[in-house]
């Protein structure tokens, strides 16, 4: 294991590591644009230069492509390095439009940060900037501003090395290079395409669904888990910061919507990536909600509904429960503790693959389109979903069950978060919360448990499932 010194700190690095990797492992920061820990090393941006001590004096070279050697002495911030970096920044911004004022990346842009950190001066070029396409549609999901592109090729390498769609390339050359999608259209079908938006170090690749929607500093990320499939990728759900709430009338919806979804890096589950379905999960979570309890389709007070459900449970001879694979481990455990002995319990899939959706691949996407099947099965077993014909009470929890499978004559107690036609067919209906309205955990297909955190308050009239189960079992509490 070679030993080297970086900025006076002696560190040990595995042979074959680069100076960039050794520094990153040791917590020493070296700036980079084109390097990415999960992608190949093109060494094209030159911002990662470091100084290396030598007999003839200090020489500078890029850290991302330099293997460590025994006894190496590296400086990340010498005068020579600072001068070179500054010149490199001048070069990289030579044709950059600096239209941060209208750029969605502003606030989380590496080029902005490095400019303040390593250059800080106006352009020394007297030549007019080269122009390129702005607002170019790279795919139905991604808008490209080619003037902002610094040609790091991260996006291109992502489609070659990670998503393997080979969907992007660099056309032409030099200062008229253009990022372009392959003509056969495969980029539009890349289910991981939106990751290039995150890894673009500048504001060249923009999400159409987030385009000019919010300045990122008005938003706050809440750690969550994508419910889109049993991979259970950890994600950040971005929504308006409470201190920046919009106060104009009619703005409640904007204050309480998910504006964008980004990966929350997690080596145990999804690494730094998520699929496009995860990006769009706000559409699933933003569907119209059920917000009132009902008795046979008529709105009812929550307490009255609880009393009615309790008497149905007490009267049943063969009660069966079909629990949700979108419920949290906490809710499932609460059900088991409160009602597990009274019901025979089956686990259902709330969601099946949609037509046209990628069912499964060998990257992230799993065929089971529910986040917590493993958590539910761990508590209630693997029995297939077959309702016994003599069941006289069926408690259904969550969407996705065909009510035609419920034996005729059986009473139905239904818990659902969404406004759906089945709600009115239940003898007792309870509106329940969704994952953005509570904390909890899901267990993914491989047995890894991840936490999600509440983003928004639970709407009035919506029951908290944990408290509801206790109330249905006759314990204290009233479901709210």
């Amino acid at each position: 294991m070679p030993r080297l010194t970086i900025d006076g700190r002696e560190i040990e690095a595995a042979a074959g590591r680069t100076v960039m990797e050794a520094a990153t492992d040791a917590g020493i920061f070296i700036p980079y644009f084109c390097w990415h820990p999960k992608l190949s090393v093109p060494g094209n941006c030159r911002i990662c230069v470091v100084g290396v001590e030598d007999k003839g004096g200090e020489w500078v070279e890029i850290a991302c492509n330099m293997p460590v050697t025994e006894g190496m002495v590296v400086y990340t911030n010498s005068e020579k390095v600072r001068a070179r970096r500054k010149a490199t920044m001048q070069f990289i911004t030579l044709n950059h439009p600096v239209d941060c004022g209208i750029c969605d990346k502003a606030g989380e842009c590496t080029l902005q940060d490095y400019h303040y950190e390593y250059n800080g001066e106006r352009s020394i070029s007297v030549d007019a900037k080269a122009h390129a396409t702005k607002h170019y549609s790279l795919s139905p999901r991604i808008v490209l501003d080619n003037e902002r592109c610094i040609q790091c090729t991260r996006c291109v390498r992502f489609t070659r090395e990670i998503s393997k769609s080979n969907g992007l390339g660099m056309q032409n050359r030099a200062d008229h290079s253009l990022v372009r999608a392959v003509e056969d259209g495969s980029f539009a079908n890349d289910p991981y395409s939106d990751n290039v938006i995150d890894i673009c170090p500048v504001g060249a690749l923009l999400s159409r669904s987030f385009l000019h929607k919010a300045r990122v500093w008005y938003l706050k990320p809440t750690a969550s888990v994508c419910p889109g499939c049993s991979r259970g990728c950890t994600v950040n759900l971005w929504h308006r910061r409470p201190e920046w709430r919009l106060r104009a009338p009619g703005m409640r919806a904007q204050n309480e919507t998910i504006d964008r979804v980004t990966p929350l890096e997690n080596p145990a589950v999804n690494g730094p990536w998520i699929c496009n379905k995860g990006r769009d999960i706000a559409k699933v979570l933003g569907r119209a909600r059920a917000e009132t309890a009902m008795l046979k389709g008529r709105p009812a007070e929550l307490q009255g509904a609880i009393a009615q459900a309790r008497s149905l449970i007490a009267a049943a001879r063969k009660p069966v429960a079909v629990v949700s694979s979108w419920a949290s481990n906490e809710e499932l455990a609460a059900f088991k503790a409160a009602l597990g002995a009274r019901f025979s319990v089956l686990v259902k899939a709330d969601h099946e693959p949609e037509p046209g959706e990628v069912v499964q691949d060998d990257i992230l996407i799993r065929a089971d389109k529910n986040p917590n099947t493993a958590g539910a099965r761990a508590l209630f077993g693997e029995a297939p979903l077959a309702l016994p014909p003599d069941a006289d009470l069926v408690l259904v929890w969550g969407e996705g069950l065909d009510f035609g499978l419920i034996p005729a004559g059986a009473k139905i107690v239904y818990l659902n978060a969404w406004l759906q036609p089945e709600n009115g067919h239940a003898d007792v209906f309870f509106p329940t919360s969704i994952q953005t309205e509570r904390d909890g955990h899901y267990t993914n297909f491989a047995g890894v448990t991840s936490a999600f955190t509440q983003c928004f308050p639970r709407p009035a009239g919506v029951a908290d499932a944990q408290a509801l189960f206790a109330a249905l079992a006759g314990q204290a509490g009233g479901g709210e």
Partner: protein
Amino acid sequence: MKHLIPEFEKMKERYPEGFESSLVLPCLRRIQEDRGFVAEEDIVALVDYLKVPRIQVEEVLSYYTMLRRKPIGRFHLQACRNIACSMRGAEGVIAHLSRKLGVKPGQTTPDGTFTLTEVECLGSCGTAPVVMVNEAYHENMSTEKLDRLVDELAAGVRAGGK
């Protein structure tokens, strides 16, 4: 393109195994020599033959301005506009050709006979200014020589020759 595959197979032998993407450029050159340009069906066939992602072929085609995806005129006049030629009157050469043919650089005459292009140094600075006609160099060009060259080429076409 298919009829060129035996030639491509020979070229392949000069590369280590697994370096199919290195063959993209020589194959495209050969295709263009054969057809005059690279057609969509050539791209599809080449992708299929080399098993490289299509985007790599598109990148190479756009990187090298010598490769074209559209047919051009029968005679490709490439007038050098780089330093040595410019110092010896390249601007005048290009302007004269443009006037005489009635097309701007980058365009083809309506009868499909001539395409005029401006190019960078042709490596013949000692005989500047230089104009290439297809694969042949025409050196020390003057207005008279240009007129003679163009007239002869046009006459050849009219006479049905090559």
